[in-house]
């Protein structure tokens, strides 16, 4: 088994009295693609936010390569460079051109050379089909283009693990495809990724392991082939049923 990259141990997270994540443990290995599915409000997004240190947690530990990720700690900016995050609402910076969006953090945080970073950014943009958009501003791009640019922005930091938080939930079907294709290629390259999604077909294709979360707990986990074909728990089966439709009119 490959080395352990991300370890989550007995994580507890609540907002005031509302418990969002209950004693959750999860280990992600290098090069592994973990897909997290579950109903809305089950704590999937919160889990990603905790991994990025955006939320204070009430108990447990999250470690990346042995170093603890803790909300408000001093090494957090350093650790976050190793964790790329892509948001549902893209969150490109509207006042910066696409290329500036991508190069800002490598220049200001990693203090890399401008020529080198721009060259890398352009070649990454080329690979997702956006080279001609480099000098444009986010508002001039479609949703799918924005999301691909946001993925490039995260990639350009050379992260060790990438977090995707329902990145296609706000997109039209055609745009969903172009974004998912980019993610599939990243998986092929052997990147470590944690993906929260409602796209079941995509999950089946991309995942090494599927985690089903409900009410802040991991209810079931397994290989995608097994999980989608024959979920072991009733709750997961009921959830997967949502995505199936039977014909409502009698057919000859």
């Amino acid at each position, binding site marked *: 088994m490959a080395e352990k990259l991300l370890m989550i141990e007995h994580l507890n997270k609540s907002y005031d009295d509302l418990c969002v994540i209950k004693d959750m443990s999860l280990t992600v290995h290098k090069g592994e693609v973990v897909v997290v599915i579950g109903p809305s409000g089950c704590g999937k997004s919160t889990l990603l936010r905790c991994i*990025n240190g955006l939320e204070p947690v009430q108990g447990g530990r999250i470690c990346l390569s042995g170093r603890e990720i803790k909300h408000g700690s001093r090494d957090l900016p350093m650790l976050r460079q190793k964790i790329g995050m892509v948001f549902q609402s893209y969150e490109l*910076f509207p006042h910066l051109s696409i290329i500036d969006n991508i190069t800002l*953090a490598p220049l200001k*945080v990693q203090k890399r050379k401008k020529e080198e970073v721009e060259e890398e950014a352009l070649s990454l943009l080329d690979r997702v089909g956006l080279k001609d958009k480099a000098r444009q501003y986010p508002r001039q791009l479609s949703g799918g283009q924005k999301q691909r640019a946001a993925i490039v922005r995260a990639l350009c930091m050379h992260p060790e693990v990438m977090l995707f938080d329902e990145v296609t939930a706000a997109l039209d079907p055609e745009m969903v495809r172009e974004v998912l294709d980019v993610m599939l290629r990243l998986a092929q390259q052997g990147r470590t990724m944690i993906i929260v999604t409602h796209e079941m077909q995509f999950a089946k294709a991309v995942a090494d392991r599927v985690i089903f979360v409900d009410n802040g707990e991991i209810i079931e986990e397994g290989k995608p082939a097994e999980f989608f074909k024959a979920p072991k728990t009733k709750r997961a089966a009921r959830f997967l049923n949502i995505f199936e439709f039977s014909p409502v009119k009698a057919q000859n």
Partner: protein
Amino acid sequence: MNIEYMLKYLPLYEKAAVLTVTIGAEGILIAAAVGLLCAVVQYNRVPVLRQIAAVYIELSRNTPLLIQLFFIYYGLPKIGISTNPSVCGAVGLGFLGGSYMAEAIRSGLESIEPIQSESALSLGLKPYQVMRYIILPQAVSISMPAFMANIIFLLKETSVFSAISLMDLMFTAKDLIGLYYKTTESLFLLVIFYLIILLPVSLLGRLVERRLRYAGFGS
């Protein structure tokens, strides 16, 4: 109206206009700096400083500029700080304007969704870098219309400078009326000069606002 009289005293008005604009500009610069500082302190909820900023803003917004000027002009020498009227004018205007600018910038800051910060933080930017590169540039352009309105408001407020014996436009007009009783001519010139100063600022404000509203970033 006596044109000859108006032409004769035109140079006096010109001199006064320069003084009004100079001290006005200095005051506005102070106001912008103070405003920015207060807005950032309040937005980031910096303890202690935040309360100080809140007290300052209420004090500054809810007292007339004339009173503030008197305090600075007559009060400072009493605690051993000697100063001259033009410094008092600029500082007074800065004191008044700081709170208005703070509120303008703060509303801009609060209109930026917190997730923008989070997205910047997730890239490894330090909190001050997030403020400097992501939040402030967006907030300032959003608050530009309010900012421009404040500039016009502050330039008009300079008319109370005459009370601390600064020879601004208002002072000059009142002086000439007292000396020659040519009220109509003196006031006419006064209005003309205020318009010469303020109309371009107002037009500039329109331009900035239209650019932000219809074009936005990327045009």
